[in-house]
């Protein structure tokens, strides 16, 4: 790690010498959250995210940025924040139990003709759905606040080679190679948003000890890397894409075994092919959009009688259909239907063969966008559970925004959202940009 840091500092210094005009931006943020059930501080977080960018000559652009974060409540990642799910060169630097520092952007763009090659640590966003994902699988996600934060904050940037080739004026081919074995960052047991739903985690019979081992992460840089492409085009008002990604599923397979009359869970990872596409089309005040993705291998959990639960693999076809409506001034309304089908579903599986979620996003601006209110509701039809996120932003000054919000979970404790039924919270935040 030290070598890496030294190299980064040297690189930054050397670049700043040769760069013509450097731009330095910093965002500072302070957020607190109070749990509505337990009435304790669920979050008290100060974040500072400086970044620097500029041109190296005519056609090379670079950007570097870090995020330093101190959560004084220490409820989301109790104890020293871990790096179990991250590749060695994507790990966070931690100080004590409350501070973590992460490299969020570190890349160069090399432009040639109409093509661009972006090399370095970056985020790749596929798909456009709100709240839940179908095609947006390139980068893993941190679940320390479940799915509540903006994806931009929770997505984990990866070291990636990203080549975007312009084929004609409205067609693009994106080629990706991701030699970074970092996967979803799942909170440890005891964390506020530790996953507890039997849909995801095995539940041992009462009195049986459960031991969760460190994940068995693939570690070969080349052999275990991910690769894929996205072909996108814009024709006659239709925006279309074809996507393919050969990758390790970022969600671990939780293999269980019995040892000394206790249960041992070992998170493992497995490869899958993702093939799919997306479309969107604007007509009148509406935009219709959709994504479809087929994953060749998904591990699902199965409940055996009187035995430790097991897992098996199935293909999964998932899609989202969305309708956005802009017809009311200053208001944006968007409804989505997410569905996924386990193609080789067997009886006794924890998830249903068809899983459906509905979402509704309503956003309204007031007073020339100085006040923005947003409601995002996601409702799972299978378990009748869901989450409601309501927030109001107030732009006080050009670079100063205060935010208040409430996040409410409801439904069956065994459901994906219902598991956090007792984690409803009220949030307040202030954000400053320099």
């Amino acid at each position, binding site marked *: 790690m030290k070598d890496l840091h030294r190299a980064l500092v040297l690189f930054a210094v050397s670049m700043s010498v040769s760069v013509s005009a450097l731009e330095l931006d910093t965002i500072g943020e302070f957020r607190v959250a109070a749990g509505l059930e337990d009435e304790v501080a669920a979050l008290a977080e100060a974040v500072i995210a400086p970044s620097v960018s500029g041109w190296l000559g005519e056609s090379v652009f670079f950007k570097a940025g870090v995020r330093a974060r101190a959560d004084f409540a220490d409820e989301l990642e109790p104890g020293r924040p871990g790096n179990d799910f991250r590749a060695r060169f994507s790990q966070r630097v931690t100080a004590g139990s409350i501070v973590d520092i992460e490299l969020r952007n570190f890349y160069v*763009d090399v432009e040639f003709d109409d093509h661009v090659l972006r090399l370095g640590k970056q985020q790749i966003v596929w798909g456009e759905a709100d709240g839940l994902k179908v095609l947006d699988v390139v980068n893993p996600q941190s679940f320390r606040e479940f799915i509540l934060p903006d994806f931009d904050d929770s997505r984990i940037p990866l070291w990636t080679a990203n080549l975007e080739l*312009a084929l004609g004026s409205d067609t693009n081919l994106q080629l990706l190679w991701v030699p970074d074995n970092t996967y979803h960052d799942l909170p440890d047991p005891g964390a506020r948003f530790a996953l507890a739903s039997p849909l995801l985690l095995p539940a041992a019979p009462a009195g049986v000890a459960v031991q969760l081992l460190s994940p068995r992460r693939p570690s070969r840089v080349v052999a275990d890397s991910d690769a894929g492409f996205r072909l996108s085009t814009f024709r006659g008002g239709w925006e279309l894409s074809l996507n393919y990604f050969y990758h390790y599923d970022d969600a671990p397979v939780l293999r269980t075994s019995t040892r000394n009359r206790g249960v041992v869970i070992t998170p493992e990872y497995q490869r899958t092919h993702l093939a799919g596409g997306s479309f969107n089309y604007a*007509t009148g005040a509406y935009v219709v959009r959709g994504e479809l993705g087929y994953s060749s291998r998904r591990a699902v959990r199965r409940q055996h009688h009187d035995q430790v639960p097991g897992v098996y693999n199935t293909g999964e076809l998932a899609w989202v259909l969305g309708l956005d409506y802009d017809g009311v001034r200053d208001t944006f309304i968007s409804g989505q239907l997410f569905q996924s089908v386990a193609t080789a579903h067997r009886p006794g599986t924890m998830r249903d063969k068809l899983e459906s979620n509905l979402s509704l996003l309503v956003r309204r601006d007031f007073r*020339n*966008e100085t006040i923005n209110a947003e409601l995002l509701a996601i409702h799972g039809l299978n378990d009748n559970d869901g989450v409601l996120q309501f927030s109001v932003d107030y732009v006080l000054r*050009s670079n100063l925004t205060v935010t208040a919000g409430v996040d409410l979970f409801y439904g069956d404790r065994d459901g994906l959202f219902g598991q956090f039924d007792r984690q409803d919270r009220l949030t307040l935040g202030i954000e*400053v940009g320099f």
Partner: protein
Amino acid sequence: MSKNNTMPLDGNRIERMFWLITARPGLVVVVALCALVFMASGIPRLVKDTSADAFIAADNPAVVYRDRVKQVFGLDDPFVIAAIASDGRTIYTAERLALVQNLTSAIGRMDNIDPDRVTSLATESNIVGTADGMDVTEFYELGDDSQTTGQAIAAAIDDFPLYQGSIVGRDGGATLIVAEVLDDKRSQATYDDLLALVAATDIPDGVEVHVAGEAAVSGYLGTYIDRDATRLNPLSALAITLVLVLAFRTLAGGVLPNLVVAATAAGALGVMGIAGVSFFVITNGLLPILIGIAVADSIHILSEYYALAGRFPEASRRQHVVAAMSRMCRPITLTTVTTVAGFVGLWLGAEMPPMKYFGAFAALGVIVAWVYSLTLLPAALTLLPLGSSPVFVRHRSDRFAALMQRFGAVVMARPRAVVATLAVVAVIGAAGASRLVVEEAQIENFQKDEPIYLADTALNRAFDGTNYLDVIVETPGREGLFEPDVLRRIEALQAFGETLPGVRGSTSVVDYIKQMHRAVNENDPAAYTVPDDAFLIAQLFLLYSTSGDPTDFEEEVDYDYQRANVRFNLNTSFYRNNREVIASFEQYIAEQFNSDGAVAHLSGRVFVNHHWLKTIGDNHFRSLAISLALVWLMAAAVFHSFAAGAFALIPVVLSILLIYAVMGFGGIWLGVGTSMFAAIAIGLGIDFSIHTIDRMRELAREGEGTLASRLAPLFPTTGRALFFNFFAIGLGFLVLTTSEVPPLVKFGALVGVAVTAAFFGAMALMPTLTILLRPRFIVDAGAGAAMPGGRAVTWTSACAFVVLVGALGWSDVARSENATASVAEGQRVMRAVVARDEGDWVTRRLLMRMIDRNGTARERDTVSYRRYFGDEKRTVIFYTAPANVKDTGFLTYDYADADKDDDQWLYLPALRKVRRISASDRGDYFLGTDFTYEDIKKENKIALEDYQLDKVGERDVGGRQLAVVEGIPVNEEIAQELGYGRVRWHVDETIAISRLTEIWDVNGNPLKTLTVSEISKIDGIWTVERIEVDNHKTGHRTEFEFSAIDYRSEVAERMFRTSTLKRGAR
């Protein structure tokens, strides 16, 4: 209800839903109340629109033409203030003339009155011949002193036929002051001001002063509505609470449904406010309807809840709630679906905007009532410490249940008699329908003892009439009106018009010509004719302009003497009379007037009103047919049987026929207020059918014994609830009959009759027909035929969601009809603006500064690029500072093809997502500025196809002579999209840039002003460097400063890809 003694709970999906709702009742109540407050926050934004124009689409050719006429001749619906001598003398006494003069000048100083458009004896001039030609003297300057002035004016008017009947009564016993308003929407306040002015003026004995005219009618209707609303609403609440207390005799029973009512009202009216839909005259009827429906849902739920609580006292309150909700969820959902179908029928079938909105928002309200009944009500019932209802503990002895039981016994014993009676009603109804008459007159909206009604009557008696029909004569070129032949044809047209019923007089430029012709012929009465010589006519006008005020004719001819307005005064606004008049005019103009030299078109208030009134009948029958069809389909779908759908319609059709009978035989017109009753009667009446059929199916399936005995429990249970349902709605409409607006009174009474008929139809006719016909969908309805509840609810909610989102959008769908108008000059100027060279590409920095009314400023630095790809213009803007908005990007493809929607994308860095945004939101404000997306995209240009353009003059601004071009969106849809009702550009033709742009909103209020303060020539291209916008509504201001403008460096094509948008600013 199960027959054993355990709670009827079986753990199905619906029950699970209500267990979920009642698990966190506090949360549900809080969320529901928050939503209520949110919706209610839209109510203060409601704007009243009581104008007759509200009833006609703004893109109707009659309106478009009328608006053009308004522009040319400056004619508007005026206030008319009349001084009428009540003592049999004339108004030519000194003190009476002084009164007219004082009032005229006081009115000219009033807010919202156009001081240049106040006309009275005190402003007009006399035309007389003198030794050396013609003298134009103001009437008040005639005579030597105040005594002789009166006599002189009397003599002059006697000699000036033009003013007889228009400004002065033909017997000299009355005179008028005509005043035009600046802003129609503020007519109500202006009317109040005028009344106050008249009250404060010292009026001489023997004179009455009246305020009337179209503007007054519109204005006063606003006051009328205000008074009505403040009176009707508390009355409704009181009436409902009374019914509820009577039904349940508990406090919660009285209070909780009122919460659902509040949410329903807030939902419909609040969303109306948020959506910018005005509160029309007929919107007053919406509230009682929604209240009735909201209460009905609550009554059914509470009845079931209290019945269960009385029957199973040992079960918990939550169990009672869940059991009651799961039992009532289905029928309430079914009635909601069918009622919504009825209102959607009105929405689809009606053409008049207020009626369309009535249908749409009634449907929305019904959905809100349904949502709150199924969420807030169970949550609140669980939360509150409720007792049981004394009524339901002693259920058997409840007199309403007993009453309904007796009613049932009577009906079931004589099925044939019941059917025969109702068949007679149907026949009478059909006979009544054949006597229906379509008629309307806006003044009849007032009671006959109202001052406005009295004023209108007095004015129409003393003068030629306050209803105007305009005939616009257009000649092919400038000064075409100097042709004697054209003027003679106008004269003949006037003579013809004055023979028609109700037409009492007319005014045109011909009257002035004749007066002037006589004046120059030494006042020889024989010379009161149109001269034979075009040259002489031109001379007469010239002579007048040198001695009088040339603007005196601006209501009669345009500036170029190309178009003339012939105004006919009618003393009646009754549709049927004026229909005949318009038909006669149309025939005359087509057969005898039109020729190469001149053509005529009808316009004016009477003509515009005729246009929408003639659609009332069609509208009515079309929306009736659509509503019936939709309700039939919905009912068929919910009962899985087309026969059941038809069966459900029987009471509804019966009630409509009964109303036709009442209208036909009672002489009630099919007018604005009454034409909507049918769709509403369907929406409300179908509830009774659905509840009855649903319950009969259940009873037929479960019970034992004969069909009649199995159906008997219908009456004390569902029948009792329906009785209170009927009672609540009936009371709601009873409240409406206390309205001061006569059409609302009739409307309320008619719907009351309809609901009564539907109730008795459902309670008497449906069970007896069931016994007589034994329909399969009731008698054979096995368990399998019932709808799978959970799925039904899921899909119904999904459908409701789709309907809601769709409803918001669909309402924008409007017909576009191009107005035909010659606009060559305006087109030329703006075409030059659009064709202005902008270079093939440009790069520049832009500082945006947004300042709120308190002076707090926000700044954003951006860099923007533009490039033409052939005709297609692509623009991209990236934010560069401050850090928290950095990388926000906006990309747009602006196509030359007007039929092709532009494409645009927004990149929000917080989401890392490029969001496609629809092009129809081009009137939305761009990222917090006062520029719309369209303004940003067009950059001081416009889409020519969006506007009807007209050059209205020239103006000196800052020492530069600028061409003033006015644009009106070509139709309502475009106006709504742009958010603009009118735009006035001040174009510097030397550089083809508008230096000053004034913009009005779709309601005609001043919206914003754009000022271009710095322009320079960069790389040979005229370029705006600084532009400011002031938003007059919000007090907000935006300043744009462009810098580092570079037209020379080529902008790479890749800058305009969505992938570049994602990568952010460079």
